[in-house]
């Protein structure tokens, strides 16, 4: 039982998460007035902050396990939500406007995938290019103006409401993480993703269509970015064309902290989810102890490097 736990590929991130949460809770227990970690207000703001990055990171992470990168998710996130708001403003029915966001998200993912596979270029380059291209598209359609999006009560309840004490967005984040787990661990497609990312030649040798697997993962990344865009548009009700800058790198950071390998073939859905939570926990702790904002970037940068070093060290040991 114990060896099975230690051997589990997510054991390290789970252990680190448990330790950090315990330290925070103990600190709160001793200094409840200075370090308001378990105050309801603090928990609420955490639950609101985590899901956007969390949902994006699930898509980016599954793609990373298949051995590819997606740097265009930040641009996809803002373009899809902006187009949705624009269509809704033009009198489209809400359902069609939301559908448009998802169709554009899938199309961007498929485009990234097809260009990467057909021309055999690194996805890092493909999606760097599409990130810049899509940012240009956003500026073109927006004329650098923000847009208001007020979709009405039903949609607000679904994407930005609460269920009991829990924020709807947080439930969606849990839902996406669960979807990632089911896909990667319980479904045959997940087995193919790990095989393609871990040893592409081996995957082809056993008859897996590696290109198809990768293109589907690119599409998934696009869908997740689009969903995050729709979700945050409903929450914020105004979409600025400059939104989502840096989201792609934060998503990769969350994945790496969660134990994913930059070479593919390694990582878990729970790792991606906990990696995201960990980044926001660090941010939250720094805010609670009143550290200046630039500490945050320094801490996140540092933890990414430490995470990669730890991953490599663990990889060499087994």
């Amino acid at each position, binding site marked *: 039982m114990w060896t099975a736990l230690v*051997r589990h590929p997510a054991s390290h991130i789970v252990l680190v998460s448990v330790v950090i949460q315990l330290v925070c809770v103990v600190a709160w227990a001793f200094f409840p007035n200075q370090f308001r970690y378990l105050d309801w207000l603090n928990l609420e703001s955490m639950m609101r902050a985590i899901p956007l990055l969390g949902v994006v990171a699930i898509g980016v992470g599954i793609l990373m396990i298949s051995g590819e990168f997606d740097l265009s998710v930040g641009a996809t996130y803002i373009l899809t939500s902006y187009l949705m708001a624009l269509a809704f403003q033009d009198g489209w029915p809400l359902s069609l406007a939301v559908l448009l966001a998802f169709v554009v998200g899938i199309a961007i993912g498929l485009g990234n995938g097809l260009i990467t596979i057909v021309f055999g270029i690194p996805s890092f380059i493909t999606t760097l290019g599409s990130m810049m291209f899509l940012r240009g598209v956003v500026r073109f359609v927006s004329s650098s103006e923000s847009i208001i999006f007020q979709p009405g009560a039903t949609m607000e309840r679904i994407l930005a409401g609460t269920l009991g004490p829990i924020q709807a967005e947080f439930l969606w984040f849990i839902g996406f993480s669960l979807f990632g787990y089911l896909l990667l661990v*319980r479904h045959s497609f997940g087995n193919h993703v790990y095989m393609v990312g871990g*040893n592409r030649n081996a995957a082809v040798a056993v008859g897996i269509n590696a290109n198809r697997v990768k293109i589907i993962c690119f599409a998934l990344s696009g869908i997740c970015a689009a969903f995050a865009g729709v979700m945050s548009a409903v929450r914020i009700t105004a979409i600025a064309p400059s939104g989502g800058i840096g989201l792609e790198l934060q998503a990769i950071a969350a994945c790496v902290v969660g134990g994913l390998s930059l070479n593919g073939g390694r990582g878990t859905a729970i790792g991606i989810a906990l990696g995201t939570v960990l980044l926001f926990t660090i941010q939250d702790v720094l805010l609670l102890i009143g550290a200046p904002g630039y500490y945050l970037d320094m801490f996140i940068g540092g933890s990414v490097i430490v995470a990669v070093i730890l991953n490599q060290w663990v990889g060499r040991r087994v």
Partner: protein
Amino acid sequence: MTDASSAPGVSPLLSLHKISKSYGHVRALIGVDFAIGHHEVIGLLGDNGAGKSTLIRIMSGVERPDTGSFRSNGQEIRIGSRRDSVAHGVETIYQDIALAGAMSITRNIFAGRELTSIFGFLRLKAMRRVAMDVLGHTVEISGINSPDLMIESLSGGQQQAVAIARAVYFKNRMLLLDEPTSALSVRETENVLHYISKLRDEGVSCVFVTHNVYQAYQVCDRFVVMSHGRAVLEVQKGDTTIGELTRFVISH
């Protein structure tokens, strides 16, 4: 060219006729005939660049020949993809091990051929049970006590054994081993050679590609020597010696 395995009345499991393949100006294979009979281990010998690996890749459907044809049990067949070769019972074990390191033994054994229930969800318990069975009976691999172990925690020989176990479980009738021992220690090599002779007893025919004549002589029934894209010698084990084979491989 004589071919003892295709004696009257018994067609070979798989035969290749006049197979040619060029890469640009390089003629990798020139009109090669090759047959795999029932219950035999064939040693495919030759120096680097002789065309051994190209022949294996064509038999496993990864590459298509420019010209030539295939027959299986006397019937003309087509091998144009990995799917075709799988359908005719061909499995290949490569020199670099065809497994993913960060996946469990069970998941590797079933990669691409998962046991699934409705909507493609994995039958993990059934897969694990079969993997335990395969590891316990088909090939007894020393030191492996759980099908949940990650491939990267196994030694090279153990990994090769898992790859062979996978081939055997899927009831392949022909196993193509492309230099399976090149990355292994002496003792692990002995184990893999042991599996090969065990497979023949279970009715699986093997093509063992190597340039180590001594290893081939230990387990093979028949030898085919290749040189510069041609099959230059075909001989039964009883009709030759290690010394003769070695001289032949070196002199061509």
